[in-house]
């Protein structure tokens, strides 16, 4: 997501050039004496920068891939490698259509710069969107490459093009059975083939899934070997000549404290201490930050502790978790301030017509990403160029943000500032590496010291500067008539994260702005409310949302794995069980009856996204506009919504059957709970059902998860073994969220400082996990996050079924289970 400061000429200019692209070039070019074969985006040579670049011997050519005369193919992966093995998955798609041998495939990651941005487009890895959004176009790029090679190969073989086909890196003449390797073709022929955009590209017939040889195979991830021997390089592993280290002083408040004075008299006594740098916070970032710079990192840490800093604690100095919840409750009473996210039927009439109604309050605590690799950045200034070395979810936004910051700090025009971002492996992302404060601070320290600076967060400063998932408060109401759910209302109060990323008018841009479904048509933040728009057919359904703006800024609200699904699925799916109980129905049968795929839950057949909705706008803006033209001519691929709620019902049946739901004999105080999700977004669903089996100790309220059963329908499964790994990891992420993860704010600062206080799941707590991947020939959807959302509600429902304790808060503590058991008794 774009930050307010990034609405600078860099973005605007690039968008203009995007509009002019109409060609897709496949050509070989002579670089440093070797024939390289590159495949480019439309208009690769249209931009003068790209043209200049291609003429430069040192330039690393190509967009999606480069084939070298030795027959090896390097896939250029703009997506961040952060545990999802995305490079392997995307390379499988290209290799399939390009017809290269898998053992000849290599990966690399392009440098981010203004020039390369206009070639590669937006480097941004979020929202479980990489395979969904890239699949079709990279498959076509691979196919275009194959077509060009077959044509060239036919020439080399002196054969008819129609008689030739490609297989395993060779072009073969059917008639004579002679063949020539891709590498040899490149040595003999100069390829210069144009495909018109969009017609030629759209006209390419992609393989039918039944022909797949590489897609659908559980190939070993290409990034794994280096992760077993210490050779894998993360951002924190960078070294530059004459590099100094920076360690942050724990700021007084999470946000907007102001440094009043710095006493460095004790720090100066520490050998190796260089200086204390008060970070420029003119962009509203790095507020209250003081960095101790030293020749070594332990020295920097020691100096950071020795610095005596005085702060004005700022506007959130008295804010805490308890105060925020109280303010949410008050805010929810003011209906005028709400915006409708979902509005179907007449909800109020539905309630008045109902036989009975059920009203419940739900709350969720903050959590944070707590990636194993703490945030860090290394910045070097050479000859007026700024080089950033970092593992980040967006090298593009990192570049744009630093450009804007330096423009302010150095009082220069953005176009006069040259920033390059070098991507490294990301030691855990989960949404937590799409902020760039550390890069700004490292750059400022580099400016102040004249040396490259590696800024590393200690675990303590990483927690103190967490980008938290907002706390949430929900009011739910159900109207039940003759055992049916006829009306449902969900009120959600939380801090909307979108504004912090520049989303909507309030964020300072119109970017990704959605309108509410009411006459007010006001900004509404999909990222904070999504997931409440479930796939059950409920005739009268309303979701109202309130933005608590102080939260957004005070805790620097952010996206955390599945974004708002991570709390809304817990709330919706817990409440569904409560409604089923009140309606006298079994939760499984009750859900299946409402997942009937009718009306708005039928999904969109065959193409595109629902026209004329905010959803369409969103997908276009986020995924499609860069580097592809903005017209609705792309995507040509099938919507992931095809099949609609029926696919979700199918997952639920599979998971229920495999878990033995309703049939397995359970020990005392043991229950099963079910839940479904269509995360990540309404427009990009991955269909998932989850069942948890949980045993509760009625004396203490402690609970343990015995088994998690997951069934997922991701459409085409590009790499099934990796999908299973993603599902297992995300299921345990969900288990961790419901069992133990909790971040709290007190006096404007987070209370947890390290892993003894903030406790993610450990090996001993890992239950048995049963995974079913329901493969189909539908367009693939994302797998890195969705399964994480079903575990929390499934566990909550299992606890209720085990001992009758309904806990309406996440995480669930043993004390809360005990208290709920008493209410039941």
């Amino acid at each position: 997501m774009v930050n307010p400061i990034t609405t600078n000429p860099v973005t605007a200019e690039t968008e203009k050039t995007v509009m002019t692209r109409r060609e897709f070039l496949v050509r070989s070019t002579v670089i440093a004496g070797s024939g390289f074969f590159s495949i480019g985006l439309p208009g690769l040579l249209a931009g003068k920068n790209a043209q200049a670049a291609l003429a430069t011997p040192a330039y690393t050519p190509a967009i999606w891939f480069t084939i070298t005369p030795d027959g090896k193919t390097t896939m250029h992966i703009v997506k961040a490698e952060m545990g999802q093995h995305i490079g392997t998955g995307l390379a499988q798609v290209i290799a399939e259509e390009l017809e290269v041998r898998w053992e000849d495939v290599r990966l690399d990651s392009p440098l981010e710069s203004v020039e390369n941005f206009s070639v590669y487009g937006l480097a941004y890895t979020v929202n479980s969107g990489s395979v969904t959004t890239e699949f079709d176009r990279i498959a076509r790029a691979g196919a275009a490459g194959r077509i060009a090679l077959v044509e060239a190969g036919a020439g080399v073989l002196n054969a008819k093009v129609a008689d030739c086909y490609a297989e395993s890196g060779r072009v073969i003449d059917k008639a004579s059975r002679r063949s020539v390797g891709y590498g040899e073709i490149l040595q003999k022929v100069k390829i210069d083939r144009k495909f018109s955009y969009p017609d030629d590209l759209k006209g390419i017939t992609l393989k039918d899934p039944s022909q797949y040889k590489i897609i659908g195979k559980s190939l070993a991830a290409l990034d794994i070997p280096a992760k077993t021997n210490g050779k894998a390089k993360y951002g924190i592993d960078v070294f530059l000549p004459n590099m100094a280290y920076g360690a942050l002083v724990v700021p007084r408040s999470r946000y907007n404290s102001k440094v009043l004075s710095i006493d460095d008299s004790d720090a100066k006594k520490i050998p190796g201490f260089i200086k204390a740098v008060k970070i420029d916070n003119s962009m509203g970032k790095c507020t209250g930050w003081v960095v101790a710079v030293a020749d070594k990192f332990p020295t920097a840490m020691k100096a950071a502790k020795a610095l005596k800093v005085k702060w004005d604690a700022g506007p959130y100095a008295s804010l805490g978790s308890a105060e925020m919840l109280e303010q949410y409750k008050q805010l929810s009473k003011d209906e005028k301030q709400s915006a409708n996210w979902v509005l179907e039927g007449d909800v109020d009439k539905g309630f008045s017509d109902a036989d009975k109604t059920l009203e419940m309050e739900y709350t969720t605590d903050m959590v944070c990403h707590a990636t194993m690799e703490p945030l860090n950045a290394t910045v070097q200034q050479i000859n007026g160029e700024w080089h950033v070395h970092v593992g980040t979810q967006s090298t593009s936004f990192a570049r744009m943000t630093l450009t804007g910051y330096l423009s302010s700090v150095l009082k220069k025009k953005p176009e006069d500032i040259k920033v390059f971002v070098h991507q490294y492996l990301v030691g855990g992302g989960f949404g937590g590496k799409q902020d760039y404060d550390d890069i700004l601070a490292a750059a400022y320290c580099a400016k102040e010291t004249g040396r490259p600076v590696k800024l590393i967060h200690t675990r303590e400063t990483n927690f103190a500067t967490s980008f938290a998932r907002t706390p949430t408060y929900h009011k739910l109401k159900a109207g039940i008539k003759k055992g049916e759910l006829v009306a449902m209302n969900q009120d959600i109060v939380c801090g909307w994260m979108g504004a912090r990323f520049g989303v909507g008018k309030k964020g300072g841009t119109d970017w990704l702005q959605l309108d509410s479904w009411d006459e007010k048509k006001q900004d509404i933040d999909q990222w904070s409310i999504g997931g409440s728009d479930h796939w059950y057919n409920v005739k009268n359904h309303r979701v109202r949302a309130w933005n608590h703006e102080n939260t957004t800024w005070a805790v620097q609200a952010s996206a955390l794995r599945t974004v708002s699904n991570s709390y809304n699925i817990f709330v919706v799916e817990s409440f569904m069980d409560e409604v089923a109980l009140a309606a006298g129905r079994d939760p499984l049968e009750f859900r299946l009856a409402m997942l009937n795929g009718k009306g708005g839950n039928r999904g969109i057949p065959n193409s595109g996204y629902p026209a004329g909705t905010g959803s369409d706008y969103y997908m276009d803006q986020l995924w499609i506009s860069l580097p592809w033209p903005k017209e609705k001519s792309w995507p040509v691929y099938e919507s992931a919504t095809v099949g609609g709620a029926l696919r979700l019902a199918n997952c639920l049946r599979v998971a229920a059957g495999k878990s033995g739901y309703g049939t397995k004999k359970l020990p005392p105080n043991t229950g099963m709970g079910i839940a479904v999700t269509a995360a990540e977004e309404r427009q990009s669903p991955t269909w998932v059902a989850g069942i948890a089996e949980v045993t509760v100790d009625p004396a203490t309220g402690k609970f343990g998860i015995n088994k998690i059963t997951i069934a997922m329908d991701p459409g085409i499964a590009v790499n099934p073994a990796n999908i299973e790994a993603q599902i297992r990891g995300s299921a345990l992420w969900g288990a961790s969220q419901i069992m133990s993860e909790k971040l709290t704010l007190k006096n404007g600062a987070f209370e947890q400082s390290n892993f003894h206080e903030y406790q993610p799941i450990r090996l001993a707590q890992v239950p048995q996990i049963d995974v079913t991947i329901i493969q189909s020939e539908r367009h693939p959807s994302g797998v890195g996050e969705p399964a994480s959302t079903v575990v929390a509600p499934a566990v909550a429902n299992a606890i209720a079924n085990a001992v009758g304790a309904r806990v309406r808060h996440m995480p669930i503590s043993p004390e809360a289970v005990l208290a709920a058991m008493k209410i039941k008794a």
Partner: protein
Amino acid sequence: MPQLSINGQSYFTDSPPDAPLLWVIREDLQLTGTKYGCGLGVCGSCTVHLNGQPVRSCMVKLGDVDSNTVITTIEGLDPGDAHPVQKAWIEAQVPQCGYCQSGQIMQAAALLAANPNPTSEEIVAHMNGNLCRCATYSRIVGAVHRAADLMKEGVNHG
């Protein structure tokens, strides 16, 4: 200037005696396979072997070791990067983001050196101090069993 013996080689560092061994290894000597995660000994990312024992290097001061201490990091676990644990890790495709995996592998290798036939319970108890935020946990126990089998098969492990 303190001298260290790491992976069979001698290294010198100008860091002070109170510097955590972790930072000496990864920043002074640039053996970056050893990772910083918490600095409190509660996550296991920085696990190395001191005289064969798995140790959280963030909790050891430079002054606590000398040139007689045999220090092994992930880079020196096996000369061909083919220790049975490393082989089993690749076979089971354990790593995701990979950041904690050097620590996981060093912890597992130390277990198998002391106990070639661990039960699943023993593996869990021994590995429980190593955090993995990607939660690769469900492949770890199986991979340790597999590494134990590979060791028995006499696979070269340096």
